């Protein structure tokens, strides 16, 4: 496969905002709901183009989710975005009953995912949202790897999904490396790099780090498969089982708590279907803190180097 090249850093929230605008142009039923930080989560593009279809509800996230449910029950496709710590965590009960139990087609955007949020610190760095959102029946959970994919994820969530969808995205400008022309199929893992010595299963910003790790390992003759899991729920079970069968060891990588996130989702599939050693890269039951994004990623272990260390360990456990 061709190597992925960074076309320039771009925040996934920018891709989210562009995708929302395009989805809104294509489908007049798309309504955006704002909770004050509209520009900060990329919804301002839609809001200025379609003021009649933008509903500002202020700093009242629980109400935002309920209003979204009422709009969805009336044939609209609401998109509600704010920081993930609010859209997924403050509103958990509303998401559970008003959205998921009613199985309504509402797209929730969770911005500021991971420690790469940077200087805002722990309060605003969503590290628990995947775990909470993926246990909700009927919910689809999407975590795009870059801005180009975030754009397509929103369009797809509006046009192809039917129930509630949670899309997670980041604040910091990060490598934009996937094709704007790629096909985005919810629930389908993306093969990013071929190899059979081990498989690195990554999501969000960690997919780029996983690719850098694979390119490094290649120099030593270690061929790592890299799968981008842009849809954490429903997860692509066949692709994961095939990776376990053909590679014999896995590493998961996510900008999220180790408990309940991608690593847990992968373990649930692998332990049942084809048990192999798995190592986990993620946040180890800890809050983030303030600092420059890259330094925080290094401090808390969200880099290609951490993935390489985990890869060696996973491979060393093969056949034990």
């Amino acid at each position, binding site marked *: 496969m061709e190597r992925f090249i960074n076309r320039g850093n771009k925040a996934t929230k920018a891709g989210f905002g562009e995708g929302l605008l395009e989805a809104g142009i294509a489908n007049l039923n798309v*309504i955006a709901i704002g909770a004050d930080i509209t520009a900060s989560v990329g919804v301002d593009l839609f809001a200025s183009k379609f003021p009649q279809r933008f*509903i500002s509800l202020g700093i009242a996230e629980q*109400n935002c989710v309920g*209003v979204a449910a009422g709009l969805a*029950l009336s044939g609209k496709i609401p998109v509600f975005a704010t920081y993930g710590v609010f859209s997924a965590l403050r509103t958990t009960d509303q998401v559970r009953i008003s959205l998921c139990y*009613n199985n309504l087609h509402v797209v929730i955007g969770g911005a500021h995912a991971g420690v790469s949020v940077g200087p805002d610190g722990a309060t605003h760095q969503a590290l628990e949202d995947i775990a909470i959102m993926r246990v909700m029946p009927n919910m689809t959970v999407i975590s795009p790897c870059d801005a180009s994919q975030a754009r397509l994820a929103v369009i797809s969530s509006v046009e192809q999904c039917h129930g509630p969808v949670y899309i997670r995205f980041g604040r910091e400008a990060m490598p934009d490396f996937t094709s704007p022309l790629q096909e985005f199929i919810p629930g389908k893992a993306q093969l990013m790099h071929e190899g059979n010595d081990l498989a690195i299963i990554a999501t969000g910003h960690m997919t780029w780090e996983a690719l850098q790790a694979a390119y490094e390992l290649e120099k030593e003759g270690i061929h790592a498969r890299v799968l981008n899991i842009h849809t954490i729920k429903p997860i692509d079970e066949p692709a994961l089982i095939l990776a376990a069968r053909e590679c014999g060891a896995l590493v998961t990588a996510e900008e999220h708590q180790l408990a309940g996130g991608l690593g847990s989702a992968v373990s649930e599939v692998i332990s049942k279907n084809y048990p192999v050693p798995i190592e986990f890269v993620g946040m180890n039951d800890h809050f983030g803190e303030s600092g420059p994004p890259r330094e925080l990623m290094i401090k808390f272990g969200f880099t290609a180097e951490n993935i390489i260390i985990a890869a060696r360990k996973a491979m060393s456990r093969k056949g034990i």
Partner: protein
Amino acid sequence: MGSQTANGVSSLTLKARCIRQSVVRSLAAAGSGHLGGSMSSADILTALYFSVMKHKPEDPFWAGRDRFILSIGHIAPVLYATLAEAGYFPKEELLSLRKMGSRLQGHPGRDHGLPGMELSAGSLGQGLSVAVGMALAARLDGLDYRVYCLNGDGELQEGSIWEAAMSASHYKLNNLTAIIDRNGLQIDGSTETVMSLEPLKKKWEAFGWNAMECDGHDFGSLLNAFKKAQQEAVRPSIIIAKTIMGKGIPSIEGDYRWHGKAPSKEQAEEMLKEVH
């Protein structure tokens, strides 16, 4: 539907009595459930479904229907009894309440396919937001249906209610009417002891609502309030309906211990003799 003639009011009284009897029977058959609030809300629901709202039981999802949101899902038995009385499904089905495989879930569950159910609900404080969303959608689509939302008084202690209240007046949703079943009681006792709500009408007025008080067991008073809500040009309306928990069964009226309880078969027999 019907107009407010003296005859209309007396036929509403008869309907309400049938609904109360159905509630007692279904709760006794279920062996658990919330009797007190079902009884205090029975007249409000009767007024809505047999006089105030535009709806078609034979076409439950008719696009032009007025929407009814039950935010206090725990009084589902009275909603079920009202829907059955209106002809949405056979009354015999009321005896399946809370049983395995029933369309009559303990709290409303839309996915079980009961005709006339607008929303699965039961976690307090959520329904008013959903009603705001529906009222906004009517605006966006230029449709003239109205949205009615029934809230409990204890439920008003949830902060999310006041988020919804702010948004409804901000968007001048005069097509939205909330009704408070102001029975003054919640599970732990009097609302004013548990966490005081008064001055309730002033609170809603301060939030920009057309707030009214009425006797929640007097159809003349209820219908008058609904009429004023329909005539309001700018603000969302709220009807604080003064009610009595357990209303219609004299031996339990005003007793908070009946909030979350169902009668035994023997108790139900006695209650059915009393229901008025």
